[in-house]
């Protein structure tokens, strides 16, 4: 995933779509939109989903293997295996994991305006996190759609973003949209010094105010 900070307006719609599609407790957030200071008098935002690290500390530390890598690199949670020790939350450098301190009962305020739930609610006592809407990817690909190109096979936050600040695609494919964008523009990742190799890239806001395209 590539997130273009020069296009992000901090509207929080990605977060709302995420809540609806993944049926998340309104008190928790999988993709936080953070304030990242100002440039030339304009506010800058940094939306932060799970980084889907190549060397994910959460996967390494989980004692029962409830966090694991999918073959395509998505870092997954097995909510039935998890014992709730929270070591993954301790280890995550990006605070990407949130814990179900309470059971989420009752209505989801983001539904139906921002979408319909596509996955089960998580029980009390386990941490949860962004899954790159693996369910949408799998379902889309099974009918021949391409993630990042066809909306039905793309994470909800990417589809809903009104300014197109989020770009999704296969980083392993040199001709995919994300690979081309990253070839063309300078990008950075969060806490790269830790060696986690995040799969979420950011295009920074440019000093000269030019919007990337």
């Amino acid at each position: 995933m590539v997130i273009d900070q020069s296009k992000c307006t901090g509207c929080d719609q990605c977060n709302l779509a995420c809540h609806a599609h993944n049926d998340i407790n309104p008190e928790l957030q999988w993709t936080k939109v953070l304030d990242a200071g100002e440039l030339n008098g304009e506010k800058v935002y940094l939306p932060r989903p799970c980084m889907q690290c190549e060397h994910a500390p959460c996967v390494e530390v989980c004692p029962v293997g409830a966090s694991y890598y999918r073959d395509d690199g998505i870092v997954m949670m097995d909510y039935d295996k998890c014992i709730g020790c929270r070591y993954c939350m301790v280890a995550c450098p990006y605070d990407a994991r949130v814990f179900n301190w309470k059971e989420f009962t009752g209505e989801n305020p983001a539904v139906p305006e921002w979408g319909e739930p596509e996955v089960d609610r998580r029980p009390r006592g386990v941490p949860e996190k962004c899954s790159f809407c693996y369910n949408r990817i799998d379902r889309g690909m099974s009918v021949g759609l391409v993630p990042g190109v066809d909306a039905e096979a793309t994470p909800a936050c990417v589809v809903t973003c009104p300014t197109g600040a989020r770009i999704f695609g296969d980083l392993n494919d040199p001709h995919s949209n994300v690979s081309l964008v990253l070839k063309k523009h300078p990008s950075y990742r969060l806490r790269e010094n830790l060696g986690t190799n995040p799969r979420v890239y950011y295009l920074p806001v440019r000093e000269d105010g030019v919007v990337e395209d």
Partner: protein
Amino acid sequence: MKIIFKTIRENIFTPWGLWLSFLGVLLATALVAGLSVFWFGLSITNLTDIVPWGLWITIDLSSIAVAAGAFSLCAIVYLFGFKRYEPIARTATFIGFTGYSMAMMALLLDIGRPDRFWKSFVYWNTHSLLWEVTMCVGLYFTVLVFEVMPIVASFEWLRKKFPRIAEKMEHMHHYAPVLAILGLGLSSLHQSSLGAVYGVIKARPIWYKPEMSVMFMFTAILGGVALTLFASMLAARLTPKAKVNDILVERVSQVLGYMMIAYLYWRFWDWLAQTYTYEPGRTEAFKLLTSGTLSFNFWFGEMLFGALIPTIILLYKPTRLSPFWRMLGLAMIVGGVVAFRFDTNIVGFLTVISYLPGEAMISYTSYSPSLVEWAAGLGIIAFGLLAFSIGVKYLRVVDHRLTSEEYETVHVMADDAIKA
């Protein structure tokens, strides 16, 4: 029924009765607190996504640390052959058993899905240090069960009612050296890995250092031996049921004093090295310890009263020979180890490192345990005290008169033959 009430009425105002009632109140409160945690979930604690491990983890870390006397002293007695310290090893084994029970109670409370605790033994992620700790704690607890069997066998009621079972349990004593080797291996593995659980977390620079496992191992041995000696001496002062051999205790205390010097030396470099380079987050966390909210805990709990003063007390002969000062010194070491574990756990969480690019933004957060956490935590400690008290009263846990005739390890037949 009337007889029971009569016995209670007659005994409640004895020191033993009052002590049991006090522990009973704590345990009853803890039961309510524990059940409400299971019922309402962890939302009734003050734990958050930023500080996910709090008081209970400190109790877990500390009770595992002070239980380490079991493996250290069993190794000294059964592997290095210092047989005369055997009675102390007996006390240490019982304290170890109690400590690990406490730790497992704390963990059961702390995990979000206590109903799935068994999954930690069934599903393995061999990459995870917590997996290794879980397996070792589970296996070592099994070893402790066997090690504690000869002690339980000295329960009069059991001896009378089930003499054969008692005999079998006492027979377990013949495997003491094997159990000591197993215990030493499993303990060394997980006591140090417990430090490495923190030491491998690259996201929190104050923890991310290889010494973490060494520090945990070191403090565990110090705290474990200190608690064993302190508890033995205290028991001997309070009840005629406990008998200590003061020469043995004094000798071990002196060794402990020398080990404290090594610890202070190591600790000095451990902390000084923190300041050598500026690592965002590490320096800030270090500041939290030396001049921030944890500074009192650090300077007084860990350094002055936790390490420096007890070292002097245990190495200066007049104070070491005085039972009062020696006990004070030993208790201070235990306190210092608990303070070390508390600070180490919490400092990594209170220093919040921003992942925003550009400047390294570090902020501090705070955590104070909720009433439920305190109630359940104190209950776990009360359980430990209760177990030890019962052990002293009924199982002769602290009895340094026990000679090796009664608790001999291995009969070396070949030796007899040579003599004859």
